């Protein structure tokens, strides 16, 4: 079945109904993820706050539970400032691209068996493609702001994203070899035969590379050079304010969630768990995803920032060779066994 | 069903636009992008042939075309940077380095 025919499958179901179902799925997924994004920010502030002997947001609502809503309201009503010499169309469109690239990756992620917006058989490639597009939002915003800091941040970030894209793609090749498929649902199913229903043990090397690359891909500490506030003030989005800033912010968190999902699906067995949780098919995935998101925060609270050349060195001299080694070993085992 | 000719015509048009860009623009980067356009035109025709002839080889060929395009872009852009460092221009009519 080609992609075209999946959407426009003639006969069986009415085309409009098909499109309608897809639209509903998209709405549900986007809605849920956006809610999680909002509370991921709250979660981050709370987690890091407690790690740093303070409390985090406490004022808005019980223990600051309404803080994300307040933040959103504030950002939404803030004045949208555009620098005088900015390239306006690009300045407008850059955050949208960032967000779109992040959101569209959600389409191929299976949240539980059967629930996936588009069950592409090139799922992993699709996610890689979309995340490589994220670089555009960054470069464009960096360039269009007509500010030196944001320009430097944009260059840094896109170089970083492109470099780590390679390592990330290679780290997933091991999984693809083991599962024999690029379809994320198939990958989850292929893991059922392995210990703990996960690829993490045979693919620990790939897992390690993937996690590090995912941190870099989402511009999080210790790879947050593009927005290193002590060097570049805030990097590529230094000139953004209000709603557009919120879009970048959301894109970053969606990126984190997607990477967490991908890690859970490819290495930890997705929605499968050691035992079944009744009525909540996505419970295991949720737990795993939040574990990874917690890991993001934990690392942020612990380590300093890499320097630019060290970061590139790590990517090209450590991660990519490791990933290649992983592929070689996996391939050899696949052939021999 | 869309006939094969339509795809070929589309490819032809894109190719011609690529030629147009290559022959008329001053900026060497745009010229490179025109080359990419032409390569893409070829790819469109290859993939459509592959689909209509039910043969995988068209796609394989276009995969190789993409490879070559990537290599070409890397080398070409490196040359541009080297040129720019020496001449501080990206305009092709100000460069005549290959003059005999």
């Amino acid at each position, binding site marked *: 079945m080609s992609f075209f025919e999946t959407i426009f499958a003639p006969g069986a179901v009415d085309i409009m109904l098909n499109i309608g179902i897809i639209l509903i799925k998209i709405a549900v997924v986007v809605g849920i993820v956006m809610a999680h994004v909002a509370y991921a920010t709250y979660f981050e502030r709370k987690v890091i706050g407690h790690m740093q002997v303070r409390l985090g947001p406490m004022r808005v609502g019980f223990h600051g539970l309404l803080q994300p809503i307040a933040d959103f309201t504030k950002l939404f009503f803030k004045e949208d400032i555009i620098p005088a010499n900015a390239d306006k169309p690009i300045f407008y469109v850059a955050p949208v691209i960032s967000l779109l690239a992040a959101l569209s990756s959600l389409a191929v992620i299976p949240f539980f068996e059967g629930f996936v917006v588009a069950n592409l058989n090139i799922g992993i490639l699709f996610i890689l493609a979309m995340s490589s597009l994220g670089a555009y939002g960054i470069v464009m915003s960096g360039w269009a702001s007509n500010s030196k800091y944001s320009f430097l941040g944009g260059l840094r970030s896109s170089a970083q994203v492109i470099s780590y894209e390679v390592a990330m793609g290679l780290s997933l090749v091991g999984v693809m070899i083991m599962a024999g498929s690029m379809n994320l649902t198939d990958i989850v199913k292929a893991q059922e035969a392995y210990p703990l229903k996960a690829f993490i043990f045979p693919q620990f090397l790939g897992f390690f590379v993937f996690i590090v690359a995912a941190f870099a891909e989402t511009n999080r500490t210790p790879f947050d050079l593009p927005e290193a506030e002590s060097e570049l003030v805030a990097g590529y989005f230094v000139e953004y304010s209000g709603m557009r800033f919120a879009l970048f912010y959301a894109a970053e968190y969606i990126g984190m969630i997607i990477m967490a999902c991908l890690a859970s699906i490819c290495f930890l067995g997705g929605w499968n768990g050691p035992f079944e949780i009744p009525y909540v098919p996505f419970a295991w995935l949720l737990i795993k995803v939040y574990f990874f998101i917690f890991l993001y925060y934990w690392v942020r609270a612990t380590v300093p920032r890499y320097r630019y050349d060290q970061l590139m060195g790590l990517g090209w001299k450590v991660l990519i060779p490791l990933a290649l080694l992983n592929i070689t070993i996996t391939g050899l085992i696949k052939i021999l066994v | 069903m869309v006939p094969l000719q339509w795809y070929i015509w589309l490819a032809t048009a894109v190719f011609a636009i690529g*030629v147009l860009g290559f*022959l008329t623009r001053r900026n060497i980067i745009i010229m490179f992008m025109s080359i990419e356009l032409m390569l893409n035109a070829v790819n469109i025709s290859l993939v459509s042939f592959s689909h209509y002839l039910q043969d995988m080889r068209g796609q394989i060929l276009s995969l190789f075309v993409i490879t070559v395009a990537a290599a070409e872009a890397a080398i070409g852009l490196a040359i541009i940077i080297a040129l720019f460092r020496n001449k501080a221009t990206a305009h*092709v009519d100000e*460069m005549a380095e290959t*003059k*005999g």
Partner: protein
Amino acid sequence: MKSYQLIPFLPLAAFVINILLGKRIIKDKAHWIAVPAVLASWVISVFTLFDVIGGKVFNEDLYTWIISDGFIVSVGFLVDQLTAVMLIVVTTVSSLVHIYSVGYMHGDKGYYRFFSYLSLFTFSMLMLVMANNFLQLYFGWEAVGLCSYFLIGFWYEKKSASDAGKKAFIVNRFGDFGFGLGVIMIFLTFGTIHYEPVFNAVNGIVGQSINILGYDISLVTLIALLLFCGAVGKSAQIPLHVWLPDAMEGPTPVSALIHAATMVTAGVFMVARCNPIFNLSHVAMNVVAVTGAVTALFAATIALVQNDIKRIIAYSTISQLGYMFLACGVGAYAAGIFHLYTHAFFKALLFLGAGSVMHAMAGELDIQKMGGLKKYMPWTYWTFLLASLSIAGIPGFAGFFSKDEILWQAYASGPLGKIVWFLGAVTALLTAFYSFRIVFVAFHGKFRGTHEQEHHLHESPKVMTLPLAILAIGAIISGWVGIPPLIGEFLGIEHSDKFGAFLAPVVGHPHAEGTHGEEIFVMLLSILFAVGGIITAFFMYIKRPEIPVQLGESMKTAYRVLWNKYYVDELYHLIIVRPTFWVAQSVIVGVTDGKIIEGIVNGVPRAIGGFSEILRRVQTGFAHHYAAVMALGLLIIMIFLIL
């Protein structure tokens, strides 16, 4: 069980790793790569030998290398009894030399380079012996020559070393040229270069002849002689022996491995491998036998008077190689290979012992400056003594069995055989004499070197003496697999000549015509000669050291001739080197280079320059113009196609 395929590739891998990473990363750890690789090869070789003993013979193509019409070349391995023996010889000696080199080359700045060359050599040699076609054989043949060149000239800063390397390479070219022609002839004749079809078809060309310059020459003889040409070069037989003594400029482990045990024996191996061809040509057989016998005697006489310890052993090598050819020439291939096999042990041992002595003497080579080393280096002395006993042919040692086998087979093979047997027997006497001359002069008596040298004397490290000990064991017992039936009967061992029987499927069994009495006579005579040689040496160098001096005085001319190695080098210089130089100087530089080539070289560009002056106008340097022309061309072609 296909692991035998790994045998050559493990050293190759070691070579690649060492040569690529050696300079920066591995440095003085190179042996951690090379030694395990060659040891692994050795282990696999041993298993392969058992497989072959069990009756399995492998012959298969791994990879088709060249297909050009009918010319099909593949990389393939033939592992039969002959190859199995060679594998054992090569990997054993190579492993021991590798280990020995860890101590010997310690601290050399080219350490990694040395090990990578050794590995490369091992790979090449294994490719040579495992080949299943002539081209692969030729590849291995040339590759070992190349490695030999690298290793002789290993200390390339030393002019004599690099000269010796060049000499070896050039002299080998003569032989290899003939060998190459032989391979081409084989292809022309048989249409294939794989052993199997060639050997199967060779009977069919008996009687065919080829007309060269008006002479009809038997095709088989021509092919055999051309092939033998290569063997003469590689195995340093007369008249191409001159490179081998000079090759001693290389590090001593190299001499042991390449110039005693393995590479130089490639010629013998090749002749034995091609025995179906040689067997069909009496002429060729006789040439081989005579060449071998004459070389054996010739080299032995030179060895009598030399003082350089390594040169003596080198001449001894030439001499022993002559023995092997002698055996092949009389059809006793098994005996030749047997001698090759035992010789590998005791000759490698001799060289390594010499290296150990050099190590202790800080590079001193002149045996006249040694003496009394026995008490300083007991390990070296005893192993060296064992090797000398073995090479002299004392009963019970390996050398005795193989040499006796050769002499008996020669004696028993007809009238020509008697002559070569006689030469061989005399050589045996001389061999015993000069071998023990080294032992007595270098190890007995008083030390004659400088005081510093005496102070420096010490036994070599364990990593060097261990291979000596292993080889010494080999020098004693390796001959016991081929005990002649005569002694076998006497000792009550059935089928005592296991070696000959083992190789028989490949090289056949020669028909010996002779009585028991004659056999006993030959054996007793050779024992007598061996003991006689030793006693003479003892007498001359221990009891009455003045005799050699007096002898030298009284037979001045003979001594001078021998000392100058029969003036062969000088002769070559006169008839080959100087004319070549003259031609190069006057003809090539003066006429060809000066007039013709320069005329062309200068004339053509002038013409082109003038023409291109016109053409360069077309090249504006603007990319657009080029692109436009391309587009125009495309347009024109399209118009053509449509119309």
